[in-house]
């Protein structure tokens, strides 16, 4: 059997790898972007000089040959579902028995005046990083007037701000909302990040939208205008206003599309033998607490693994389990386990503790009725995924979670632990007297995860 995968991102790569684990079907991966599958999430670190590009490769060079994973660097222009054939950019065609679409996303552009000027771009592909490098020369050439403007307060926007900051380039950061990423972060965390962005000397402008970008005679960006009529001279404008599935080339294929490629719980598209995974897949019926399109690394990875099982004859539904995600905002690490909505619904209560220095916080959401915990939001503190997941899954009451909070602590050894402060705060607010009953240790965690811990605490 010949399996062809469009896209060699994390979704495509993981599908290939897991199919290879179970079978020796022929596997071909096609990508126009890069011959070497690499970690998109690490693009910023290449620009910042933490890593070289080869450090971001998912596997060493010998891996692909050793595992007989064929690679083609080209663009797929068309999919012919009747002939089961792909048309490549270089004029060649390629037959498949099964097709996996893992073509990822592309940055949004909303038709702003001037969005096609030189020096205006998003950040998604390797080629975007290269053009960012090119624009950096122009920015630096401006000397004292050097400035980059970034539009859109999401995860890629703040990464771009950090990237320029690392090269000592002044940044103006336009965010439409009245606080950074507050569609996702609860108000306190969102405000912490506002402060942290400004602490780095970034000119963060909240409640501000892009109106127009203008250029000079050479067609290079020279100014950005905001909806407040402010004019900002700059040599670069980053548009980081979200991403959408990169599915233009499938429009005529007959495969059912909506915003993404529509798939059922087995990641099958409307057409037989064609699957879609990763950023480009849109679930027709997502599990509760999950969205139809989740453009994150982990979703692609899990979908790749799941579709591999199905293709290898073990039909497996995509069950992503409890939501989790993580990011880093400059120096503040962020982890979330479970559903932590930006606006607290009426049936939930929240315990929010923040370190006096304002760069660390822990939030635990739980139900008013019965106290079952529903989510953890961590800033600058590391928690163990499996422990939090188990608490959420088993609907463990908040009091019991607090007693055992040390089990979740995943900060390095010797780091100050804040469990008792968090408990104190809860006790004060609720007139309770909960005490820590377990210590941070791998043995205890192990016992807890294999359920013995539960009984001894019951």
């Amino acid at each position, binding site marked *: 059997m010949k399996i062809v995968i469009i896209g060699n991102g994390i979704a495509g790569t993981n599908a290939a790898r897991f199919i290879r684990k179970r079978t020796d079907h022929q596997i071909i991966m096609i990508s126009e972007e890069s011959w070497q599958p690499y970690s998109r999430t690490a693009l910023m670190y290449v620009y910042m000089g*933490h890593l070289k*590009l080869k450090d971001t490769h998912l596997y*060493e060079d010998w891996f692909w040959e050793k595992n007989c994973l064929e690679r083609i660097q080209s663009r797929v222009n068309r999919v012919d579902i009747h002939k089961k054939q792909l048309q490549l950019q270089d004029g060649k065609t390629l037959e498949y028995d099964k097709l996996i679409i893992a073509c990822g996303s592309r940055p949004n552009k909303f038709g702003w005046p001037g969005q096609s000027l030189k020096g205006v771009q998003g950040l998604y592909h390797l080629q975007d990083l290269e053009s960012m490098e090119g624009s950096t020369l122009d920015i630096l050439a401006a000397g004292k007037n050097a400035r980059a403007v970034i539009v859109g307060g999401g995860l890629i926007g703040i990464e771009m701000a950090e990237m320029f900051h690392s090269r*000592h380039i002044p940044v103006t950061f336009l965010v439409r909302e009245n606080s950074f990423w507050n569609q996702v972060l609860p108000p306190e965390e969102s405000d912490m990040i506002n402060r942290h962005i400004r602490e780095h000397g970034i000119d963060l402008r909240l409640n501000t939208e892009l109106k127009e970008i203008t250029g000079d005679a050479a067609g290079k960006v020279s100014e950005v205008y905001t909806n407040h009529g402010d004019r900002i001279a700059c040599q670069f404008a980053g548009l980081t206003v979200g991403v959408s599935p990169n599915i233009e080339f499938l429009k005529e294929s007959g495969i059912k599309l909506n915003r993404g490629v529509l798939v059922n719980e087995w990641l099958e598209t409307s057409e037989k033998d064609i699957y879609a995974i990763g950023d480009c897949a849109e679930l027709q019926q997502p599990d509760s607490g999950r969205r139809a399109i989740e453009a994150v690394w982990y979703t692609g990875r899990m979908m790749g693994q799941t579709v591999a099982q199905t293709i290898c004859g073990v039909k497996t539904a995509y069950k992503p389990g409890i939501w989790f995600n993580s990011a880093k905002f*400059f120096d503040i690490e962020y982890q979330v386990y479970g559903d932590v909505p930006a606006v607290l619904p009426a049936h939930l209560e929240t315990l929010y503790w923040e370190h006096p220095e304002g760069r660390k916080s822990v939030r635990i959401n739980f139900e008013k009725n019965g106290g079952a915990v529903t989510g953890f939001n961590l800033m600058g503190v590391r928690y163990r995924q499996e422990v939090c997941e188990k608490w959420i899954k088993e609907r463990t009451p908040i009091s019991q979670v607090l007693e055992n909070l040390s089990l979740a602590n995943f900060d390095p050894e010797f780091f100050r632990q804040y469990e008792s402060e968090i408990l104190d705060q809860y006790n004060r607010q609720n007139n309770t007297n909960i005490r820590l009953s377990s210590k941070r*240790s*791998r043995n205890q965690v*192990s016992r807890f995860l*294999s359920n013995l811990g539960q009984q001894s605490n019951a």
Partner: protein
Amino acid sequence: MNNQPLESISIAQPHPVNTSLRQKMALALVAVGLLFVLVTWASRQVWNPLLSLTGSLVTLSVGTLWYAFETYKGSLPGIKNNGVMFRSLSNRGVWGWMVGVFITAFYVCLYWFPKMLGGLVQMFDPLSMFIRGRAADQWFVYGTFYTLAVLLLGVKFMLKYRHNRYQQIRTISVMFFQLGFSFLIPAWMLLMNQPEFYFTYFWPLKYDYLFPNTVNWLTNSYAHLGVFLVFWGAVMSFIAVPVLTYFFGKRWYCSWVCGCGALAETAGDSFRTLSDKSLSAWKLERWLIHSVLVFIIITTILLWANSWKQGAILGEYSMGFSKTYGFLIGSMFSGVIGTGFYPIFGNRVWCRFGCPQAALLGIFQKFFSRFRITTNGGQCISCGNCSTYCEMGIDVKSYAQRGQDIVRASCVGCGICSAVCPRGVLRLENGSVDLMDRAKYPE
């Protein structure tokens, strides 16, 4: 784009305002100190030892500390790896090669042409008289520079990692052991006409501590103290090493106590990304390091058999045996390649490919230790920071992205992988049980 993996794709000069005026002044001070040293070295004589010594050590120290302070002063606590891949020093550029050549030249003089260091030795006489009660020799010069490098660059490292208490405490520990146990105590023992003994080095790293000659010399010349020292060495080698490694992993020694580790973690910090992460390097590592260990074990056994049979087995070859080892491994490998080539091969070449102590600790760590690096569920984004900054060349990412816990013989537990991970995926921990057998059966 072609099929060749790109190196750095940076085309712009990445550090337009790299060094501030004050940083430059601090560096100038360091340069003055170095110039003192260089002139004395090259001219092989010294003008006024006390003044020269004070002048060079004070300018070197003040300059280095000032530079470190200026570098991190304005920044918020956090990971400070901006531009590492662009910098000439940390990236096998001109500066890297120059530093490498300079240190290598020093080692060559030290081991094979000590006369060339005559001026420096004289310059250090006052200090040596003061703490050891005797004139300096080339080893004293070396020891002082070594200790100074650990202390000064240790302070720099602590400023860089001021948000990370594991790194801070570990660095205080290596600075303490270097200054106390590898510098002052051996010197004071000499002052009191006792053997110059290093309590924190044991067989097989200090291979001769359990050779018959050393044992006889210690027990014959120093009576009770000598017996105690032999006993100490044996207890450390055969009891403390396995027991402590069982509880804490090899890190208790390699990145908390050992002087080689101390230099690697402080002075060598800028070069940690240069370690080779490939599978073939790992293969070479296992061959080399275990060969060295086997060689030492056999040598030790032979020497004892020989001394027991009163020279009947090896005859006059016995000393030649350990001399060869001393030249090839002790000087060439651990000195010239291990330290001189920091800027070329990375800061732990000796620890990874050559050190017999590391080999032994590694075997305990791999098979009989509670130490693991735990992976936090599915949080890894395969960014590659952990592998890149692992000085032992361990491809940490290849484990983390599969959700596998890491048990590797070579891991010195420096904790840097955990520190640089932007997603909080890695944690160094000790425990008697594995989490769900994840070290063995990932995914």
